[in-house]
Protein backbone atom coordinates (compact mmCIF):
# COMPACT_ATOMS: atom_id res chain seq x y z
CA UNK A 1 0.00 0.00 0.00
CA UNK A 2 2.82 2.45 0.81
CA UNK A 3 4.42 1.86 -2.57
CA UNK A 4 1.04 2.44 -4.16
CA UNK A 5 0.66 5.70 -2.29
CA UNK A 6 4.11 6.78 -3.40
CA UNK A 7 3.47 6.00 -7.05
CA UNK A 8 0.25 8.00 -6.92
CA UNK A 9 1.74 11.06 -5.31
CA UNK A 10 5.03 11.11 -7.17
CA UNK A 11 3.11 11.90 -10.31
CA UNK A 12 2.61 15.42 -9.05
CA UNK A 13 5.08 15.93 -6.27
CA UNK A 14 8.85 16.09 -6.06
CA UNK A 15 10.08 12.76 -4.81
CA UNK A 16 11.92 14.20 -1.83
CA UNK A 17 8.90 16.13 -0.60
CA UNK A 18 6.13 13.62 -1.01
CA UNK A 19 3.56 13.37 1.73
CA UNK A 20 2.43 10.01 2.89
CA UNK A 21 -1.08 8.73 3.20
CA UNK A 22 -1.34 6.62 6.30
CA UNK A 23 -4.19 4.21 7.09
CA UNK A 24 -4.92 4.06 10.82
CA UNK A 25 -4.64 0.57 12.22
CA UNK A 26 -6.50 -0.77 15.25
CA UNK A 27 -4.68 0.31 18.40
CA UNK A 28 -3.06 3.38 16.82
CA UNK A 29 -3.01 6.70 18.59
CA UNK A 30 -2.05 10.01 17.05
CA UNK A 31 0.94 10.34 19.34
CA UNK A 32 2.17 6.90 18.30
CA UNK A 33 1.73 7.72 14.63
CA UNK A 34 3.68 10.95 15.05
CA UNK A 35 6.39 9.14 17.01
CA UNK A 36 6.69 6.37 14.43
CA UNK A 37 6.65 8.60 11.40
CA UNK A 38 8.45 11.73 12.58
CA UNK A 39 10.38 10.30 15.56
CA UNK A 40 8.94 13.14 17.60
CA UNK A 41 7.57 12.13 20.96
CA UNK A 42 4.93 13.80 23.05
CA UNK A 43 7.39 15.71 25.21
CA UNK A 44 9.25 17.11 22.21
CA UNK A 45 8.68 20.85 21.70
CA UNK A 46 7.93 20.19 18.04
CA UNK A 47 5.12 17.76 18.85
CA UNK A 48 2.42 20.45 18.98
CA UNK A 49 3.57 21.80 15.60
CA UNK A 50 3.25 18.44 13.97
CA UNK A 51 -0.10 17.78 15.57
CA UNK A 52 -1.40 21.18 14.41
CA UNK A 53 -0.29 20.49 10.85
CA UNK A 54 -2.03 17.11 10.89
CA UNK A 55 -5.21 18.79 12.05
CA UNK A 56 -4.90 21.35 9.26
CA UNK A 57 -4.28 18.93 6.42
CA UNK A 58 -6.81 16.32 7.50
CA UNK A 59 -10.41 17.45 7.47
CA UNK A 60 -11.51 14.12 8.93
CA UNK A 61 -9.31 14.71 11.97
CA UNK A 62 -11.18 17.13 14.21
CA UNK A 63 -10.09 15.77 17.58
CA UNK A 64 -6.48 14.59 18.05
CA UNK A 65 -7.71 12.21 20.73
CA UNK A 66 -10.23 10.61 18.41
CA UNK A 67 -9.00 8.54 15.50
CA UNK A 68 -10.49 5.28 14.24
CA UNK A 69 -9.24 2.26 12.30
CA UNK A 70 -9.04 2.62 8.50
CA UNK A 71 -9.12 6.39 8.77
CA UNK A 72 -6.76 7.93 6.22
CA UNK A 73 -4.36 10.64 7.37
CA UNK A 74 -1.99 12.79 5.36
CA UNK A 75 1.45 12.87 6.98
CA UNK A 76 3.42 15.78 5.59
CA UNK A 77 7.21 15.64 5.57
CA UNK A 78 9.31 17.80 7.83
CA UNK A 79 11.50 20.58 6.46
CA UNK A 80 14.81 19.40 4.99
CA UNK A 81 16.85 20.21 8.09
CA UNK A 82 14.28 18.63 10.35
CA UNK A 83 14.49 21.74 12.44
CA UNK A 84 10.77 22.32 12.72
CA UNK A 85 7.49 21.02 11.48
CA UNK A 86 5.47 22.79 8.86
CA UNK A 87 3.94 25.24 11.19
CA UNK A 88 4.85 26.64 14.56
CA UNK A 89 2.68 25.85 17.52
CA UNK A 90 0.53 28.85 18.37
CA UNK A 91 1.09 30.59 21.68
CA UNK A 92 -1.39 29.33 24.26
CA UNK A 93 -3.27 32.64 24.34
CA UNK A 94 -3.68 32.60 20.56
CA UNK A 95 -4.48 28.98 20.20
CA UNK A 96 -7.34 28.68 17.72
CA UNK A 97 -10.26 26.85 19.22
CA UNK A 98 -10.63 24.80 16.06
CA UNK A 99 -7.02 23.64 16.19
CA UNK A 100 -6.64 24.62 12.52
CA UNK A 101 -3.39 25.95 11.15
CA UNK A 102 -3.44 29.61 10.19
CA UNK A 103 -0.65 30.56 7.77
CA UNK A 104 -0.51 34.06 9.23
CA UNK A 105 0.77 32.51 12.43
CA UNK A 106 4.06 31.69 10.78
CA UNK A 107 6.81 33.97 12.04
CA UNK A 108 8.74 35.84 9.43
CA UNK A 109 11.52 33.31 9.27
CA UNK A 110 13.04 30.90 6.85
CA UNK A 111 9.94 28.78 7.14
CA UNK A 112 7.82 31.31 5.25
CA UNK A 113 10.42 31.43 2.49
CA UNK A 114 10.52 27.66 2.31
CA UNK A 115 6.77 27.46 2.04
CA UNK A 116 6.44 30.23 -0.54
CA UNK A 117 9.40 30.06 -2.97
CA UNK A 118 9.01 32.92 -5.35
CA UNK A 119 7.31 32.11 -8.61
CA UNK A 120 6.86 28.45 -7.79
CA UNK A 121 3.92 26.37 -6.75
CA UNK A 122 4.03 25.91 -3.03
CA UNK A 123 4.16 22.62 -1.30
CA UNK A 124 0.99 23.59 0.48
CA UNK A 125 -0.76 24.03 -2.85
CA UNK A 126 0.18 20.51 -3.85
CA UNK A 127 -1.29 19.20 -0.65
CA UNK A 128 -4.44 21.29 -1.09
CA UNK A 129 -4.87 19.91 -4.60
CA UNK A 130 -4.56 16.38 -3.35
CA UNK A 131 -7.12 17.12 -0.60
CA UNK A 132 -9.58 18.24 -3.28
CA UNK A 133 -8.90 15.14 -5.40
CA UNK A 134 -9.24 12.61 -2.60
CA UNK A 135 -12.75 11.55 -1.73
CA UNK A 136 -13.74 12.22 1.84
CA UNK A 137 -16.33 9.56 2.61
CA UNK A 138 -14.84 6.33 3.91
CA UNK A 139 -16.54 4.12 1.34
CA UNK A 140 -15.41 6.39 -1.48
CA UNK A 141 -11.87 6.28 -0.18
CA UNK A 142 -12.02 2.50 -0.10
CA UNK A 143 -13.24 2.43 -3.70
CA UNK A 144 -10.55 4.95 -4.69
CA UNK A 145 -7.76 2.81 -3.29
CA UNK A 146 -9.24 -0.36 -4.80
CA UNK A 147 -9.27 1.25 -8.23
CA UNK A 148 -5.79 2.66 -7.70
CA UNK A 149 -4.55 -0.81 -6.77
CA UNK A 150 -6.18 -2.26 -9.88
CA UNK A 151 -4.61 0.48 -11.98
CA UNK A 152 -1.21 -0.32 -10.49
CA UNK A 153 -1.55 -4.09 -10.73
CA UNK A 154 -3.73 -4.49 -13.82
CA UNK A 155 -1.18 -6.60 -15.63
CA UNK A 156 -1.09 -9.37 -13.05
CA UNK A 157 -4.78 -9.32 -12.26
CA UNK A 158 -5.74 -9.34 -15.92
CA UNK A 159 -3.83 -12.60 -16.39
CA UNK A 160 -5.73 -14.26 -13.60
CA UNK A 161 -9.03 -12.70 -14.62
CA UNK A 162 -8.60 -13.66 -18.28
CA UNK A 163 -7.78 -17.23 -17.38
CA UNK A 164 -10.70 -17.27 -14.97
CA UNK A 165 -13.18 -16.00 -17.52
CA UNK A 166 -11.87 -18.37 -20.20
CA UNK A 167 -12.23 -21.40 -17.99
CA UNK A 168 -15.52 -20.27 -16.52
CA UNK A 169 -16.89 -19.79 -20.01
CA UNK A 170 -15.87 -23.32 -20.90
CA UNK A 171 -17.46 -24.69 -17.78
CA UNK A 172 -20.85 -23.11 -18.31
CA UNK A 173 -20.90 -23.12 -22.09
CA UNK A 174 -24.17 -23.76 -23.83
CA UNK A 175 -22.73 -27.10 -24.96
CA UNK A 176 -22.57 -28.29 -21.38
CA UNK A 177 -25.92 -26.81 -20.47
CA UNK A 178 -27.47 -28.74 -23.37
CA UNK A 179 -27.12 -31.90 -21.30
CA UNK A 180 -29.26 -30.41 -18.55
CA UNK A 181 -31.83 -29.25 -21.08
CA UNK A 182 -31.87 -32.80 -22.41
CA UNK A 183 -33.07 -34.05 -19.02
CA UNK A 184 -36.06 -31.75 -19.36
CA UNK A 185 -36.85 -33.04 -22.84
CA UNK A 186 -36.49 -36.64 -21.71
CA UNK A 187 -38.98 -35.97 -18.90
CA UNK A 188 -41.49 -34.46 -21.32
CA UNK A 189 -41.09 -37.45 -23.65
CA UNK A 190 -41.79 -39.72 -20.68
CA UNK A 191 -44.91 -37.78 -19.70
CA UNK A 192 -46.15 -37.93 -23.30
CA UNK A 193 -45.76 -41.67 -23.23
CA UNK A 194 -42.94 -41.79 -25.76
CA UNK A 195 -40.68 -43.42 -23.17
CA UNK A 196 -41.26 -46.07 -20.56
CA UNK A 197 -40.22 -45.43 -16.99
CA UNK A 198 -37.14 -47.60 -17.38
CA UNK A 199 -36.16 -45.80 -20.58
CA UNK A 200 -36.67 -42.42 -18.88
CA UNK A 201 -34.49 -43.44 -15.93
CA UNK A 202 -31.76 -44.78 -18.18
CA UNK A 203 -31.61 -41.74 -20.48
CA UNK A 204 -31.78 -39.28 -17.61
CA UNK A 205 -28.95 -40.95 -15.78
CA UNK A 206 -26.89 -41.18 -18.95
CA UNK A 207 -27.28 -37.47 -19.67
CA UNK A 208 -26.40 -36.46 -16.12
CA UNK A 209 -23.48 -38.87 -16.01
CA UNK A 210 -22.05 -37.43 -19.23
CA UNK A 211 -22.47 -33.89 -17.89
CA UNK A 212 -20.79 -34.77 -14.59
CA UNK A 213 -17.94 -36.44 -16.46
CA UNK A 214 -17.36 -33.31 -18.54
CA UNK A 215 -17.40 -31.01 -15.53
CA UNK A 216 -15.21 -33.24 -13.42
CA UNK A 217 -14.45 -31.90 -9.95
CA UNK A 218 -16.08 -28.54 -10.72
CA UNK A 219 -19.55 -30.10 -10.78
CA UNK A 220 -20.29 -29.18 -7.17
CA UNK A 221 -18.93 -25.65 -7.71
CA UNK A 222 -21.64 -24.96 -10.23
CA UNK A 223 -24.43 -26.50 -8.17
CA UNK A 224 -23.55 -25.02 -4.79
CA UNK A 225 -22.22 -28.19 -3.22
CA UNK A 226 -24.64 -30.62 -4.84
CA UNK A 227 -23.95 -32.99 -7.66
CA UNK A 228 -25.82 -32.45 -10.93
CA UNK A 229 -27.87 -35.56 -10.21
CA UNK A 230 -28.95 -34.14 -6.84
CA UNK A 231 -29.64 -30.64 -8.18
CA UNK A 232 -31.32 -31.50 -11.50
CA UNK A 233 -34.54 -33.10 -10.37
CA UNK A 234 -38.20 -33.06 -11.20
CA UNK A 235 -40.31 -31.02 -8.79
CA UNK A 236 -42.95 -33.12 -7.05
CA UNK A 237 -44.84 -30.17 -5.67
CA UNK A 238 -48.12 -29.54 -7.47
CA UNK A 239 -47.68 -25.81 -6.93
CA UNK A 240 -44.68 -25.63 -9.26
CA UNK A 241 -44.01 -26.79 -12.83
CA UNK A 242 -42.42 -30.24 -12.86
CA UNK A 243 -39.32 -28.95 -14.59
CA UNK A 244 -39.20 -25.72 -12.61
CA UNK A 245 -35.99 -26.62 -10.80
CA UNK A 246 -34.32 -27.60 -14.05
CA UNK A 247 -35.42 -24.36 -15.71
CA UNK A 248 -34.06 -22.36 -12.77
CA UNK A 249 -30.66 -24.04 -13.04
CA UNK A 250 -30.56 -23.54 -16.80
CA UNK A 251 -31.38 -19.88 -16.44
CA UNK A 252 -28.69 -19.40 -13.83
CA UNK A 253 -26.03 -21.24 -15.81
CA UNK A 254 -26.92 -19.42 -19.03
CA UNK A 255 -26.60 -16.11 -17.22
CA UNK A 256 -23.20 -17.13 -15.93
CA UNK A 257 -22.14 -18.10 -19.46
CA UNK A 258 -23.14 -14.67 -20.72
CA UNK A 259 -21.13 -12.98 -17.99
CA UNK A 260 -18.11 -15.17 -18.75
CA UNK A 261 -18.27 -14.37 -22.47
CA UNK A 262 -18.67 -10.65 -21.82
CA UNK A 263 -15.87 -10.75 -19.29
CA UNK A 264 -13.49 -12.25 -21.81
CA UNK A 265 -14.38 -9.60 -24.37
CA UNK A 266 -14.14 -6.77 -21.84
CA UNK A 267 -10.71 -7.88 -20.73
CA UNK A 268 -9.52 -8.23 -24.31
CA UNK A 269 -10.39 -4.60 -24.97
CA UNK A 270 -9.55 -3.35 -21.50
CA UNK A 271 -5.96 -4.49 -21.79
CA UNK A 272 -5.31 -2.04 -24.59
CA UNK A 273 -7.57 0.58 -23.05
CA UNK A 274 -5.74 0.50 -19.74
CA UNK A 275 -2.43 1.02 -21.56
CA UNK A 276 -3.83 4.04 -23.39
CA UNK A 277 -5.31 5.39 -20.17
CA UNK A 278 -2.00 5.05 -18.35
CA UNK A 279 -0.14 6.77 -21.19
CA UNK A 280 -2.61 9.63 -21.15
CA UNK A 281 -2.39 10.03 -17.38
CA UNK A 282 1.34 10.34 -17.01
CA UNK A 283 3.33 13.38 -18.01
CA UNK A 284 6.70 11.63 -17.86
CA UNK A 285 7.84 10.83 -21.42
CA UNK A 286 9.94 7.92 -20.32
CA UNK A 287 7.01 6.39 -18.42
CA UNK A 288 4.78 6.81 -21.46
CA UNK A 289 7.25 4.93 -23.61
CA UNK A 290 7.64 2.23 -21.01
CA UNK A 291 3.89 1.68 -20.89
CA UNK A 292 3.71 1.63 -24.69
CA UNK A 293 6.48 -0.96 -24.87
CA UNK A 294 4.74 -3.12 -22.27
CA UNK A 295 1.35 -2.89 -23.98
CA UNK A 296 2.76 -3.65 -27.43
CA UNK A 297 4.80 -6.57 -26.11
CA UNK A 298 1.91 -8.17 -24.26
CA UNK A 299 -0.59 -7.65 -27.09
CA UNK A 300 1.84 -9.06 -29.64
CA UNK A 301 2.71 -12.07 -27.52
CA UNK A 302 -0.91 -12.81 -26.66
CA UNK A 303 -1.94 -12.71 -30.29
CA UNK A 304 0.82 -14.79 -31.84
CA UNK A 305 0.80 -17.24 -28.93
CA UNK A 306 -2.89 -17.85 -29.55
CA UNK A 307 -2.22 -18.45 -33.25
CA UNK A 308 0.59 -20.83 -32.33
CA UNK A 309 -1.71 -22.67 -29.93
CA UNK A 310 -3.93 -23.33 -32.90
CA UNK A 311 -1.56 -26.05 -34.05
CA UNK A 312 -2.05 -27.93 -30.76
CA UNK A 313 -5.81 -27.54 -30.93
CA UNK A 314 -5.84 -28.59 -34.58
CA UNK A 315 -4.05 -31.82 -33.84
CA UNK A 316 -6.00 -32.59 -30.64
CA UNK A 317 -9.60 -31.88 -29.70
CA UNK A 318 -9.49 -30.61 -26.13
CA UNK A 319 -11.90 -30.26 -23.31
CA UNK A 320 -12.29 -27.18 -21.18
CA UNK A 321 -9.64 -28.32 -18.70
CA UNK A 322 -6.85 -28.44 -21.25
CA UNK A 323 -8.20 -25.26 -22.82
CA UNK A 324 -7.89 -23.61 -19.41
CA UNK A 325 -4.26 -24.64 -19.09
CA UNK A 326 -3.43 -23.47 -22.60
CA UNK A 327 -5.29 -20.21 -22.17
CA UNK A 328 -3.60 -19.52 -18.85
CA UNK A 329 -0.22 -20.26 -20.38
CA UNK A 330 -0.88 -17.82 -23.21
CA UNK A 331 -2.02 -15.14 -20.77
CA UNK A 332 1.10 -15.59 -18.63
CA UNK A 333 3.33 -15.51 -21.71
CA UNK A 334 1.60 -12.35 -22.83
CA UNK A 335 2.16 -10.68 -19.47
CA UNK A 336 5.79 -11.81 -19.31
CA UNK A 337 6.45 -10.57 -22.84
CA UNK A 338 5.12 -7.17 -21.89
CA UNK A 339 7.47 -6.98 -18.93
CA UNK A 340 10.38 -8.14 -21.11
CA UNK A 341 9.66 -5.56 -23.78
CA UNK A 342 9.57 -2.79 -21.19
CA UNK A 343 12.88 -4.06 -19.80
CA UNK A 344 14.41 -4.07 -23.28
CA UNK A 345 13.26 -0.51 -23.83
CA UNK A 346 14.74 0.59 -20.50
CA UNK A 347 18.05 -1.13 -21.12
CA UNK A 348 18.79 0.15 -24.62
CA UNK A 349 16.30 2.71 -25.88
CA UNK A 350 15.61 5.13 -23.05
CA UNK A 351 16.49 8.04 -25.28
CA UNK A 352 13.96 7.07 -27.95
CA UNK A 353 10.50 8.54 -27.91
CA UNK A 354 8.43 5.82 -29.59
CA UNK A 355 5.25 7.38 -28.31
CA UNK A 356 5.94 10.50 -30.36
CA UNK A 357 7.22 8.58 -33.40
CA UNK A 358 4.13 6.36 -33.60
CA UNK A 359 1.69 9.14 -32.77
CA UNK A 360 0.31 7.28 -29.78
CA UNK A 361 0.45 10.37 -27.59
CA UNK A 362 -2.02 12.07 -29.94
CA UNK A 363 -4.33 9.09 -29.71
CA UNK A 364 -4.10 8.57 -25.96
CA UNK A 365 -4.55 11.92 -24.30
Amino acid at each position, binding site marked *: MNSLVQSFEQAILPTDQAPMLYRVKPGDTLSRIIADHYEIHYQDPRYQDVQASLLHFNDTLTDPNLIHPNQLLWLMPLTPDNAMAMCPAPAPADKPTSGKFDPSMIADSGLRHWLMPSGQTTYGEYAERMKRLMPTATKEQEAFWALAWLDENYGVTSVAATAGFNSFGGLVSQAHNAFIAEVKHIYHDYKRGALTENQYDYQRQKALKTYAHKLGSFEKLLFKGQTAREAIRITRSKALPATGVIDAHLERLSGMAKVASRGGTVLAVAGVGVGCYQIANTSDRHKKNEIL*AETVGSTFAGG*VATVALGVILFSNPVGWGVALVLGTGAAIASYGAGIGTAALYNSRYRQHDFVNTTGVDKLCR
Partner: protein
Amino acid sequence: MIGYYLGLVVFAVMFAWIVWGPITWLLLSIFTPKALLDKYFKEPHFTLTETYMMRGWPGFLMRTAIFGWSLILPSLGKKRQIKETWKYMPRWYAIALKIFIYGCMASLLIVATLMPILLLFDF
Protein backbone atom coordinates in the same frame (compact mmCIF):
# COMPACT_ATOMS: atom_id res chain seq x y z
CA MET B 1 25.94 -1.51 -31.88
CA ILE B 2 24.61 -4.72 -33.37
CA GLY B 3 22.43 -5.16 -30.30
CA TYR B 4 20.99 -1.71 -30.78
CA TYR B 5 19.84 -2.45 -34.34
CA LEU B 6 18.61 -5.92 -33.47
CA GLY B 7 16.49 -4.40 -30.73
CA LEU B 8 15.01 -1.97 -33.22
CA VAL B 9 14.16 -4.94 -35.40
CA VAL B 10 12.30 -6.53 -32.46
CA PHE B 11 10.31 -3.38 -31.82
CA ALA B 12 9.58 -2.91 -35.51
CA VAL B 13 8.30 -6.48 -35.87
CA MET B 14 6.04 -6.09 -32.84
CA PHE B 15 4.68 -2.73 -33.88
CA ALA B 16 4.12 -3.98 -37.42
CA TRP B 17 2.20 -7.03 -36.18
CA ILE B 18 -0.01 -4.83 -34.02
CA VAL B 19 -0.90 -2.89 -37.17
CA TRP B 20 -1.61 -5.76 -39.58
CA GLY B 21 -2.18 -8.82 -37.37
CA PRO B 22 -5.41 -8.23 -35.47
CA ILE B 23 -7.31 -6.65 -38.35
CA THR B 24 -6.29 -9.42 -40.77
CA TRP B 25 -7.23 -12.06 -38.24
CA LEU B 26 -10.61 -10.47 -37.65
CA LEU B 27 -11.38 -10.15 -41.36
CA LEU B 28 -10.36 -13.75 -42.05
CA SER B 29 -12.60 -14.89 -39.21
CA ILE B 30 -15.57 -12.85 -40.34
CA PHE B 31 -15.23 -14.00 -43.96
CA THR B 32 -14.65 -17.68 -43.23
CA PRO B 33 -16.22 -19.57 -46.17
CA LYS B 34 -19.59 -21.07 -45.33
CA ALA B 35 -18.76 -24.25 -47.23
CA LEU B 36 -15.83 -24.82 -44.92
CA LEU B 37 -17.94 -24.29 -41.81
CA ASP B 38 -20.73 -26.53 -43.10
CA LYS B 39 -18.27 -29.29 -43.89
CA TYR B 40 -16.05 -29.27 -40.82
CA PHE B 41 -17.31 -26.99 -38.06
CA LYS B 42 -19.45 -29.64 -36.41
CA GLU B 43 -19.15 -33.00 -34.70
CA PRO B 44 -17.10 -35.17 -34.99
CA HIS B 45 -14.49 -32.71 -36.30
CA PHE B 46 -15.05 -30.31 -33.38
CA THR B 47 -16.47 -31.26 -29.98
CA LEU B 48 -19.77 -29.81 -28.93
CA THR B 49 -17.98 -27.52 -26.47
CA GLU B 50 -15.65 -26.28 -29.16
CA THR B 51 -18.47 -25.54 -31.57
CA TYR B 52 -20.21 -23.43 -28.96
CA MET B 53 -17.06 -21.61 -27.84
CA MET B 54 -15.71 -20.94 -31.32
CA ARG B 55 -18.84 -19.90 -33.15
CA GLY B 56 -18.67 -16.22 -32.17
CA TRP B 57 -16.36 -13.54 -30.79
CA PRO B 58 -13.67 -14.11 -29.59
CA GLY B 59 -13.59 -17.90 -30.04
CA PHE B 60 -13.89 -17.73 -33.80
CA LEU B 61 -10.37 -16.29 -33.93
CA MET B 62 -9.05 -19.63 -32.67
CA ARG B 63 -11.22 -21.44 -35.21
CA THR B 64 -9.55 -19.42 -37.96
CA ALA B 65 -6.13 -20.31 -36.58
CA ILE B 66 -7.07 -24.00 -36.59
CA PHE B 67 -8.19 -23.89 -40.21
CA GLY B 68 -5.02 -22.00 -41.05
CA TRP B 69 -2.88 -24.77 -39.62
CA SER B 70 -4.94 -27.28 -41.59
CA LEU B 71 -3.53 -25.67 -44.75
CA ILE B 72 0.07 -25.61 -43.55
CA LEU B 73 0.28 -28.91 -41.65
CA PRO B 74 -2.59 -31.03 -43.00
CA SER B 75 -1.10 -34.23 -41.65
CA LEU B 76 -1.93 -33.15 -38.10
CA GLY B 77 -5.65 -33.26 -38.77
CA LYS B 78 -6.06 -37.04 -38.42
CA LYS B 79 -7.74 -37.00 -35.03
CA ARG B 80 -10.22 -34.38 -36.09
CA GLN B 81 -10.70 -36.08 -39.46
CA ILE B 82 -10.09 -32.75 -41.15
CA LYS B 83 -8.34 -32.87 -44.51
CA GLU B 84 -8.11 -30.94 -47.75
CA THR B 85 -9.74 -27.86 -46.28
CA TRP B 86 -8.39 -25.91 -49.28
CA LYS B 87 -11.12 -27.54 -51.36
CA TYR B 88 -13.80 -25.73 -49.37
CA MET B 89 -12.38 -22.20 -49.51
CA PRO B 90 -11.76 -19.73 -52.35
CA ARG B 91 -8.18 -19.50 -53.55
CA TRP B 92 -7.76 -15.93 -52.29
CA TYR B 93 -8.88 -16.96 -48.81
CA ALA B 94 -6.49 -19.89 -48.69
CA ILE B 95 -3.58 -17.67 -49.77
CA ALA B 96 -4.48 -14.94 -47.28
CA LEU B 97 -4.85 -17.45 -44.45
CA LYS B 98 -1.49 -19.04 -45.23
CA ILE B 99 0.22 -15.64 -45.36
CA PHE B 100 -1.37 -14.75 -42.02
CA ILE B 101 -0.13 -17.91 -40.29
CA TYR B 102 3.34 -17.69 -41.83
CA GLY B 103 3.55 -14.00 -40.95
CA CYS B 104 2.58 -14.64 -37.33
CA MET B 105 5.05 -17.47 -36.94
CA ALA B 106 7.87 -15.52 -38.57
CA SER B 107 7.19 -12.60 -36.22
CA LEU B 108 7.10 -14.93 -33.23
CA LEU B 109 10.36 -16.59 -34.29
CA ILE B 110 12.17 -13.28 -34.67
CA VAL B 111 10.98 -11.85 -31.38
CA ALA B 112 11.29 -15.07 -29.38
CA THR B 113 14.86 -15.55 -30.66
CA LEU B 114 16.18 -12.02 -30.36
CA MET B 115 14.54 -10.75 -27.20
CA PRO B 116 16.09 -13.22 -24.75
CA ILE B 117 19.50 -12.66 -26.35
CA LEU B 118 19.17 -8.89 -26.10
CA LEU B 119 17.98 -9.06 -22.50
CA LEU B 120 20.64 -11.48 -21.36
CA PHE B 121 23.66 -10.16 -23.24
CA ASP B 122 24.99 -6.67 -23.61
CA PHE B 123 26.46 -6.03 -27.07
